[in-house]
């Protein structure tokens, strides 16, 4: 390392640390005037202590017990209804892409231990199916479900009906066209060739447009907000709104970054899609839903703000941990490793808040489907991130890099964390939009157990395979083909786990369609009313 570079490294590190200290100071001295009161803004007056859960039986849902409280409650119903067309189109599209994307995932998985499977045509070759899987689940499912949930939460967070709903509806249509064209292009062999950036840059323009159209209602609604405090979820959503277009634009500018620099930009982008796009959406949703269902504010509002700013500072610099050992200047890799380890600060603050708020109420996951999905998702966020910090250490990465271990981590994050939270959010949102309850609690239960067991098998088998594969690769005495053969049983186990997950998704989608088309068991009741039938997931 040359002295100038070492100096630069030290400077950026100091800058991050100083930034963090300034923020801690400003938060602790109330520069942002965010006291614990801000944590209560998500409740209507008098609602605290009451659970807002569509699927709870033992206590009746809170509808307000004074005039003011009743008015606030009615206002919230109006807010929920204001976002209905926009949220429904984003969520329905997301659910559709989940089904398509996981179907491609299963296909790719089978092809990895059974290479002759559908191998005769280029349309179904592994190298095209796999990126179609990734892009369908990242840009189709995760992003669209996340935006749908944000559109639903924003009027509630700002306590005013959503303005500019048609923009969001148009945005969804354009976004869908983008996903269709992008997947088609990959299938036709027109991929741009970089992981997470496979969509041709000409198509990427549609995502920028669709996303920008979505930003309009968010900003309009924000401008009319009637709340004094900005709840922490809105911090994450607002920031994600700034980050994603910026990232997506820089990474997709064609023909600027050659060779090795291209690789750094590629991974700077890819990890920021994870860290500064889907993660803020996931954590922001959990920050709203957990306290709401428990009827209890998060335990430390200040901590949540430290968590937010330290996430921004550290996560934005971790991208190069995907190139450890690669042909990249060492200072750059070291910088990302340091920040990866520092990521434990935001992760632990978020963990204290999520799990601390849950403390003493863990039994509630037995009855509430939403809480069960969301809290397990939050727990897996903690797990994935701590695992990630370890994986970024050179001594661990030298083994796990290039192996199935990374894939296991990727699904722990994208599935057990993010997708679980999104499932929970959809179970929460849909009854409030359609004014009816989910038709069959058993289907929710079946969905849960299929995907939970599926991802467990997926994660355990690939983690084991990856670790063994990594150790063997380092030792040239083991012939390569022997390593390939050794992983096959684990890859088969992954197909089994993936098969269960896909089955779970089919159950979920069928239930979702029944909900939308108002068929199936009708358990009536206005959105915020508790239902009368037994709707408890066991």
């Amino acid at each position: 390392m040359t002295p100038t570079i070492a100096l630069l490294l030290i400077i950026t590190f100091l800058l991050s640390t100083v930034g963090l200290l300034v923020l801690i100071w400003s938060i602790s001295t109330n520069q942002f005037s965010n006291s614990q009161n801000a944590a209560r803004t998500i409740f209507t007056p008098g609602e605290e202590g009451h659970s807002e859960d569509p699927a709870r039986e033992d206590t009746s849902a809170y509808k307000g017990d004074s005039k003011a409280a009743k008015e606030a409650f009615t206002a919230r119903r109006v807010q929920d209804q204001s976002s209905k067309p926009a949220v429904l189109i984003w969520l329905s599209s997301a659910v559709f892409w989940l089904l398509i994307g996981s179907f491609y995932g299963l296909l790719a998985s089978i092809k990895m231990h059974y290479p002759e499977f559908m191998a005769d045509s280029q349309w179904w070759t592994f190298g095209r199916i796999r990126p179609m899987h990734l892009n369908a689940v990242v840009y189709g499912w995760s992003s669209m479900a996340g935006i749908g949930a944000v559109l639903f939460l924003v009027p509630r967070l700002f306590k005013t009906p959503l303005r500019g709903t048609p923009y969001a509806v148009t945005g969804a249509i354009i976004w869908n066209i983008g996903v269709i064209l992008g997947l088609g292009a990959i299938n036709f062999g027109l991929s741009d060739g970089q992981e997470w950036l496979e969509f041709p840059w000409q198509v990427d323009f549609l995502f920028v447009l669709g996303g920008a159209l979505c930003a309009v209602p968010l900003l309009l609604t924000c401008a009319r907000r009637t709340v004094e405090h900005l709840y922490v979820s809105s911090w994450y959503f607002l920031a994600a709104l700034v980050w994603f277009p910026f990232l997506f634009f820089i990474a997709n500018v064609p023909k600027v970054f050659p060779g090795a620099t291209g690789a750094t930009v590629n991974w700077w982008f890819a990890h920021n899609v994870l860290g500064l796009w889907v993660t803020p959406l996931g954590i922001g949703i959990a920050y709203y839903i957990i306290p709401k269902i428990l009827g209890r504010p998060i335990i430390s509002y200040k901590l949540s703000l430290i968590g937010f700013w330290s996430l921004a500072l550290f996560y934005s610099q971790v991208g190069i941990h995907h190139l450890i050992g690669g042909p990249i200047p060492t200072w750059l890799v070291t910088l990302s490793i340091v920040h990866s380890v520092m990521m434990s600060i935001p992760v632990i603050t978020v963990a204290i808040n999520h799990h601390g708020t849950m403390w003493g109420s863990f039994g509630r996951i037995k009855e509430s489907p939403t809480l069960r999905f969301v809290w397990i998702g939050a727990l897996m966020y903690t797990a994935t991130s701590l695992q990630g910090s370890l994986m970024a250490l050179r001594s661990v990465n030298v083994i796990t890099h290039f192996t199935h271990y990374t894939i296991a981590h990727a699904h722990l994050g994208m599935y057990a964390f993010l997708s679980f939270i999104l499932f929970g959010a959809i179970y929460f949102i849909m009854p409030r939009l359609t004014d009816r309850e989910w038709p069959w609690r058993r289907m929710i239960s079946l969905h849960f157990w299929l995907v939970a067991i599926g991802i467990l098998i997926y994660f355990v088998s690939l983690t084991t395979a990856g670790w063994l594969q990594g150790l063997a690769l380092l030792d040239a005495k083991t012939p390569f083909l022997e390593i390939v053969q050794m992983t096959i049983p684990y890859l088969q186990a992954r197909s089994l786990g993936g098969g269960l997950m896909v089955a779970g998704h089919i159950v979920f989608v069928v239930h979702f369609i029944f909900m939308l088309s108002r068929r199936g068991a009708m358990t009536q009741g206005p959105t915020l009313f508790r239902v009368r039938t037994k709707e408890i997931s066991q």
Partner: protein
Amino acid sequence: MTRVLAIMMGAAFILLLATLTLVVMPYLQMSAEAVPPGLKPYTQQELMGRQTYIANGCMYCHSQQPRDPSFASGDRDRGWGRPSVPGDYANDWPHLMGTMRTGPDLFNIGARQPSEDWHLIHLYNPQAVMKGSIMPPYRFLFRHVEKAGPNDKVVNMPPPYGPGSGQLIVTEEGMALVAYLLSLDHTYPAPTLPQAKIDEE
């Protein structure tokens, strides 16, 4: 509105800082890096092959970045070549470094396996030369004809892997792909980057 602006500006500023350290600074440093004199530019055919490599997703199973032996000695011991340096990638748009080694590193496959016929047989059916491989067959890069023309490249698959009757010829794309694979030869000398030792972290 001020607080909303503060959050959004703060978020933008932080990302700007990260862009500076992770995009701009590496760009400045690495574009100043010397290109090794032994690096040859791609021919038209090799570029077409590279496109075929991308279109069929070879990079999801194959990396192109041997690591330093002081860090991961397995890469050298398996014959994957000297550690790559930024200059080696000067002609690569986009980079194809990869993140998986479901199959071996291919940065020096042209030197390790210079036989065109081996590659063609392997691509048509990896099992024919590597029994038990999980690499997918790429039969769609070949054509099955009654009688090959004078300019066609014929592949002689060892039985029982051939098509039975008739002859097997390679498509233009298939030839280009193999040309690209053979061009993957970075055995010329290049100064290595200083590497961190494992125990540093």
